[in-house]
């Protein structure tokens, strides 16, 4: 019997700062931002503003959860805006609206989510079966979806007239914005999937070593398709909810969300190369962006300067997050 108790070769652990420190940096950045804005403008640090930020970040949170799994696997989803457009129109046209005679209420929401999932499924299948990089496939699906949405919208976007749906989109349940409650549910679901299901764990595996995973016979393609379908589903949910909020099916409902989502996921600490990060990290990143935008308005930064400030702060956040890794021999692409 071999002697137990010996832990293996001595002194062989990597000497650099542990991964723990690096993963706290985005959260620290968020806290610093909040403190900074709160000190600069007391009105920022109120409960009312807390809910405003929560409301503003609801849809981005939902989108970020979907993108997290895709990015963990080492792929990317550029079709978010197009999918949101399709689901927005589907939802609006199925609910009580100014264009069609339907009044399907919540069923419209379900159909919109299905539409999103279907588009995501398309992305996933083309990527895996035809072996086209996700970058290109989702770019194509974005165009396709935007086109479909424009056809659906025609020249008269459908206005949503269902009072219950509008009230849900705009209202609060016990002081907490409804959409934020939905977002929290999605985040919890995402976290559970990531930590406790094969979908989540295999997404990590695929991101950490897809070749090895395939070699060992894991059904990699299946999980890739699942990730895209899931992201499409959440994009669909996001588009529909945003429509409930602003009151119409709108082709431009998702404008700017793709860049914002990917930025949020990255500054939260999920690496674009895959295999590192997670849902909670993306939440931190999304909240950081929401706090940033909201805070800039509070502090009164001129709209002409906001984009520049936002870009600078994002660079800073990325720098801080990756500073401990700056050993000169690290490959950076």
């Amino acid at each position, binding site marked *: 019997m071999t002697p137990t108790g010996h832990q293996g070769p001595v002194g062989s652990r990597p000497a650099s700062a542990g991964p723990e420190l690096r993963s706290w940096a985005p959260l620290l950045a968020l806290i610093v931002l909040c403190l900074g804005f709160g000190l600069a403008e007391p009105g920022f640090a109120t409960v009312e503003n807390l809910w405003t930020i929560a409301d*503003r970040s609801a849809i981005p949170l939902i989108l970020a959860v979907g993108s997290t799994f895709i990015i963990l696997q080492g792929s990317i989803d550029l079709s978010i805006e197009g999918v949101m457009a399709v689901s927005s129109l589907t939802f609006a046209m199925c609910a009580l609206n100014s264009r069609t005679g339907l009044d399907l209420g919540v069923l419209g929401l379900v159909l919109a989510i299905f539409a999103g999932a279907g588009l995501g499924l398309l992305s996933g299948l083309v990527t895996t079966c035809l072996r086209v990089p996700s970058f290109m496939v989702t770019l194509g699906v974005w165009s396709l979806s935007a086109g479909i949405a424009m056809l659906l*919208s025609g*020249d008269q*976007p459908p206005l949503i007239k269902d009072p219950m749906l509008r009230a849900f989109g705009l209202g609060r349940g016990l002081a907490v914005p409804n959409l934020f409650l939905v977002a929290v549910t999605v985040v919890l679901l995402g976290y559970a999937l990531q930590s406790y299901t094969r979908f989540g764990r295999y997404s990590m595996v695929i991101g950490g070593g897809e070749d090895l995973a395939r070699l060992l016979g894991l059904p990699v393609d299946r999980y890739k398709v699942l990730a895209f379908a899931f992201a499409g589903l959440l994009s669909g949910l996001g588009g529909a909810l945003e429509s409930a909020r*602003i009151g119409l099916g709108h082709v431009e409902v998702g*404008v700017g969300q793709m860049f914002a989502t990917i930025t949020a996921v990255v500054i939260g600490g999920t690496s674009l190369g895959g295999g590192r990060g997670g849902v909670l990290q993306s939440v931190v990143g999304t909240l950081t962006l929401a706090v940033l*935008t909201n805070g800039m308005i*509070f502090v009164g930064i001129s*709209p002409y300067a906001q984009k520049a400030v936002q870009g600078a702060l994002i660079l800073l956040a990325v720098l801080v997050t990756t500073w401990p890794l700056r050993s000169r021999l690290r490959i950076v692409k």
Partner: protein
Amino acid sequence: MKRAMSCPAMITACVAVIVIVAAPATAAEPICDKSDIRVVNSMREIAQPYHADLDKGGRLFAAWAGLKDYVLQLNQGDSDKQISLMRLLMATNPRCTIFNVEPNADLVVKPMVDAANRSGAWIVTHWAHNEGLHPFDGNDHWIAHIAVDSLGAGVAISRHLVDAIGHTGGVVALQGRLDTDPARKRFAGLQQVLQNTPGVRLLDQQTANWDRTAAFPIVQTWLTKYGDRINGVWAANDDMALGALEALRAAGLAGKIPVVGVDGIPEAIAAVEKGEMVATVSSDAYYQGSIGLAMGTCVLTGQVPLPASWPKEKREFYLKLVVITRDNAAQYLREPQPSAYVADWQCDKLWNRSTGKAF
């Protein structure tokens, strides 16, 4: 014995015959056969109601005038694309092609006009163009520029806004894309009115890039920051105004805080009628989408002389704007009939809605 006509009489008769025969020749000759005429509407996109109406107006005109070849060009906000799409059509039958253009950006007008001059195609532009550039400066194929008095529009809605809040209080402003002329001019209109109304303060201004989805969270944040110090909301276009309205609705303030916008889209007119918006301004998208084509058709069919011979104020003029408030909202809610515009399309009535020179 009877004498023949006197010499002077004969000469006069000859001259008269010649004049009568030649007269039609001095009037403009038709440059193109009606069946060859191609009319083109070039605009940013079709998703907004404003643009949808531009397109509708163009189609209505083409149908009324009996023109089979109507083309719609969308550039999705890409200036290069707008020009290259136009050049594409200029390559075939440019002499009989009329472009009615909503320029994506002011600077894009010069290359467009150059291309038209070179190829012999015809162009009518709207809204705004490069500084120092004018149709009457030898740009013979640039039929006309129909300017919109964005400053006037801005002033008009701002006046209604400060009136609605009783000349005292605080307002917030949602600007359009900061690098476009309408955005700048409309905001200048607001600033002008505010200067003359000392009781009203501009609390804050942000850009929502013409987009309602972007306007919503901004207004939401403002409501949190300023609370009831906000008495009115100014928006540079209706889409943003409607986004602001939804944010107000979420806070239970729809209809309680006056909102103004620009464009005159049906949703906004409905809101004005309901009392949730106070005013909006319409340049009448149907008109804008058709008048350029009408002008061009009149030139090509020879019913008006070539633009080079027109007086300057007919080549560059301001379009009459309509301010829509609760008083007149009802009449603008109805879907416009072609009959309402036919009068303006007549070749002798082309300048019906001109309010004067724009240079």
